[in-house]
């Protein structure tokens, strides 16, 4: 019945992705790529009332707070993104880019995260690749040469976060009008009062 006993939770396999992330980190390190493996604990439910405390702790008291959730690879040198991406695709079999997006965790942060979700069809594993993009110099290599799938995802992230994807073949805005001011998903985004005479309030 069960063809692959890979499921270990109701929300899908977790353990094989962790192992895959470890293997990928080892392979990348031995190839000389500057990556760190982050392996947070499995998520746990914060009891009511606790969450706020944890958040506060994260923000003020302890920068080394406990981060939970999926494991991910952190690329410490964003300038080598293309190289790492090629390695992941050609050597490790991550042939599919599922998602490319960005996260602005806090308006006070000096960087954004660029997040890539990869999938290896052959090994049936997933991998999350992250890298920091400083807000002061908000540019990063486009992954379109490696995965054409990045095309629209990067266009969306570019207009929503103001990241400049260098080498993108078609850097027009995708979802927003061409004359839209600002990058809406940035935490410091100011809502406009009106757009072409249409009140936005």
């Amino acid at each position, binding site marked *: *019945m069960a063809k692959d006993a890979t499921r270990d939770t109701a*929300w899908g*396999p977790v353990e094989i992705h962790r192992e895959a992330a470890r293997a990928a980190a080892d392979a990348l390190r031995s190839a000389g790529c500057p990556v760190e493996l982050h392996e947070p604990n499995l*998520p746990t439910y*914060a009891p009511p009332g606790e969450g706020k405390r944890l958040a506060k702790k994260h923000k003020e008291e302890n920068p080394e707070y406990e981060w939970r*959730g999926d494991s991910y690879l952190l690329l410490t040198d964003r300038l080598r993104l293309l190289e790492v991406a090629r390695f992941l695709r050609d050597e490790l079999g991550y042939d599919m880019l599922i998602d490319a997006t960005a996260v602005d*965790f806090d308006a006070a942060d000096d960087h954004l995260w660029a997040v890539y979700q990869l999938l290896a069809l052959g090994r049936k594993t997933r991998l999350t690749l992250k890298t920091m993009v400083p807000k002061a110099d908000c540019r990063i290599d486009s992954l379109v040469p490696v995965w054409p799938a990045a*095309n*629209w995802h990067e266009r969306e992230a570019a207009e929503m976060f103001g990241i400049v994807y260098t080498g993108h073949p078609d850097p027009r805005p995708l979802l927003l009008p061409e004359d839209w001011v600002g990058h809406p*998903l940035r935490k410091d985004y100011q809502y406009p009062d009106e757009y072409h005479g249409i009140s936005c309030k």
Partner: protein
Amino acid sequence: MDDTTMERPLREGERLVELDVRTQDVEINMGPQHPATHGVLRVLLRADGEILTGAQSHLGYLHRCAEKIGESVDWLQYLPYTDRYDYLSAMNNNLAYSLAVEKLLGIEVPERAQYIRVILAELNRICSHLVAVGTYGLDIGAFTPFFYALRERELLLDIFEKICGARLTYAFIRPGGLMNDAPAGWTDQVRAFTDLFERKWREYWDLLVDNKIFVERTANVGVISEEQAIAWGCTGPMLRGSGVDWDLRRDQPYLVYDRLDFEVVVGQGYRGTVGDCFDRNYVRMYEMLESNRIVRQCLEQMPEGEIQHPEVGLVLRPAPGEAYVGIENPRGELGHYLVSDGNKIARRLRVRGPSFSNLALAEHLLPGCMLADAAAIIGSVDIVVGETDR
């Protein structure tokens, strides 16, 4: 106009196209209000007579800032917004979001809830594929199959209405379980549907899919190679239509899919080349039957018990962290990437819609095709603009 031609050696990737008359290129706007773009998609086409020489999609006409809204309403309040990305498979959207939140919370829902979720997701898949196949008939110019498909979809909507009171946007599968248990007699209604559907399925096959004209219009049109589909991040029937044997339900099983016996339908090149429009439709057709099988098995295996996780209340506060969960939506992988800072509101809520990636490839298939093929190809991608724009 370049009439350079036969003297120059062909460059790589070029082929000779014979044209009797080389005419002035016309730029035409297909959409945002056009019957074949399934909503408010706009494709700017450049055409040389009936042959397309260029295509460019313009999105955003249905952009409703789902991701931005996700950062301003709390975890449970966001649930109804998930209904609205792909409004034809709202149950699956609920499920994808709920699973992602549950992963962030670190909880698993009771087994009965998991079975009911699978039943609903699969019925919803049939529902969505019925619309896909029916409207694909409309795109090709056949009106009647659409009504046949809607006839069975109506029964499914009744089933959904009975369990959750809504027919299109359900907000039924929610983080922590389900809104309520199945009412009395509901399983019998579902069982009756599964029996009926197998017989009715044959009608769509005979009326539409095996129709000579339909085959002529779709076979060998809009061929996507295996490599192309993978490189462009296509998922769902678009990927399987190109012959890639990949289904998250089998290959990365969630809920109780690992206990169920079903086949992953892959495009065979049944009437043309592997990866053509016919194959994508073929995959959808047979997936409906497989979903039907899954529903039957679930009805047999479904235990009694709770349908809600005991600890989950109305206000959720996942610990700081992040989670990505992708599930097999009718149109492909619907992923949610959630980032929490421990508060009751998401820090970042990223929706990875399948139609979005699938459509990105579609515009590259259009040049070289005929104008009528544009409708066939865009239809075969089966986009829902609510999801491409979110």
